[in-house]
């Protein structure tokens, strides 16, 4: 039985460690915040210029000057600080963020990531995604194992334009988890969703993995 969205977020949350500074992408990655263990300290960075992002505000307490990178209203914590976008991306590019959890359209067996554009469709822009994958210490992708038409998303080479080359450290799909020790080694299948077989994963994956 494939993992659902919340289970994916829950699985991704297991990659968090005490004391981590983390940037969460839009979509399922945002849900990871709901699964931070109560006894663990994780500080969320929002690339528009905030460290120590709090939960959504109570109704009526929304502040238009306080949003996250998804332009959603959020709140402040006692530990929060604000800074400019230049300082925010200096933080990201400089390798100060421990972990980034992002969505993906395609990941290649070499760890290339494509998640920002589909040629021929209207292109909205890469936002901060290229900076995040280039700068954050560890990049975890959370995605459906296959596209809506059934095509594998973890493949030999990305066909879509890249967000970054050789930048992914772990891939969590609804069927399985792949990880590699460093960016010179191959991905290894380390977990299967309940009742999902290796054969099924192999059939739906064109990337080579161990």
């Amino acid at each position, binding site marked *: 039985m494939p993992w659902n969205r919340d289970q994916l977020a829950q699985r991704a949350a297991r990659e968090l460690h005490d004391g981590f500074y983390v940037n969460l992408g839009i979509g399922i990655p945002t849900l990871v915040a709901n699964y931070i263990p109560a006894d663990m300290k994780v500080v969320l960075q929002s690339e528009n210029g905030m460290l120590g992002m709090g939960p959504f505000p109570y109704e009526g307490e*929304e502040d238009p*000057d306080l949003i996250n990178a998804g332009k959603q209203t959020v709140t402040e914590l006692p530990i929060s600080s604000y800074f400019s976008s230049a300082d925010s991306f200096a933080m990201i590019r400089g390798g100060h963020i421990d972990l980034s959890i992002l969505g993906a359209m395609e990941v290649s067996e070499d760890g290339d990531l494509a998640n920002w554009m589909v040629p021929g469709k209207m292109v909205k822009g890469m936002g901060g995604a290229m900076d995040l994958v280039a700068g954050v210490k560890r990049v975890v992708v959370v995605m459906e194992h296959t596209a809506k038409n059934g095509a594998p998303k973890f493949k030999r080479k990305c066909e879509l334009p890249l967000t970054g080359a050789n930048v992914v450290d772990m891939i969590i799909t609804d069927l399985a988890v792949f990880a590699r020790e460093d960016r010179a080694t191959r991905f290894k299948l380390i977990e299967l969703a309940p009742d999902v077989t290796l054969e099924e994963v192999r059939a739906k994956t064109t990337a080579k993995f161990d």
Partner: protein
Amino acid sequence: MAGASKVFATAKAALEGVVFDGMTVMSGGFGLCGIPENLILALRDSGVRELTVISNNAGVDGQGLGLLLETRQIRKMISSYVGENREFERQYLAGELMLEFNPQGTLAERIRAGGAGIYGFYTKTGAGTVVAEGKESRVVDGHTYILETGLTADVALVKAWKGDTEGNLVYRKTARNFNPMMATAGRVTIAEVEQLVQPGELNPDCIHTPGIFVQRIIQGEKYVKAIEQRTVRKRSAA
């Protein structure tokens, strides 16, 4: 002490003599957060055309830079993300609008570099992607870096929370975003603030933009401060 005052009565007056057809304009903000609302309106009303606009986003339909798209005053955008904008999409797909995408951090750093007298800088961001095409690169310790160059503008429009008559500015929360760098990169920088105060009222250790970067300042007439994604949580029943 004398010195020509930097304070202008209206957004319209603040733009007079410094805007022209074909100019490059920087406009602060992230989404609709921290955008120079009053100055964008005045820029639209000035009627200048063929603008190159450097801004992280392009506003939404009917708000922010979306206003200048409706009137077709923008020839080219330099941005990192332009979703949520049907008129933008229409003009772009019709070939009426040019667009240069920059990764968000690269855009922020290019603007900082422009204001800081840095010709260019080497960054890993975008290496191996379309962003690297046509750019110089070098490999150091196994990492590929691409050369990105500084950006400046004829006029930078920025929005702060408070500002004094010297042009010292303080931003509020995530409305800071691109405003501080843009303030440094405009040949003329025009700031609008929610509260215009006297020198001495701002804490000198907490001034985000020193007055040297601001040539003109206005107190904005009114602020909509629209929210794009109103997300809330329920109060748990007590």
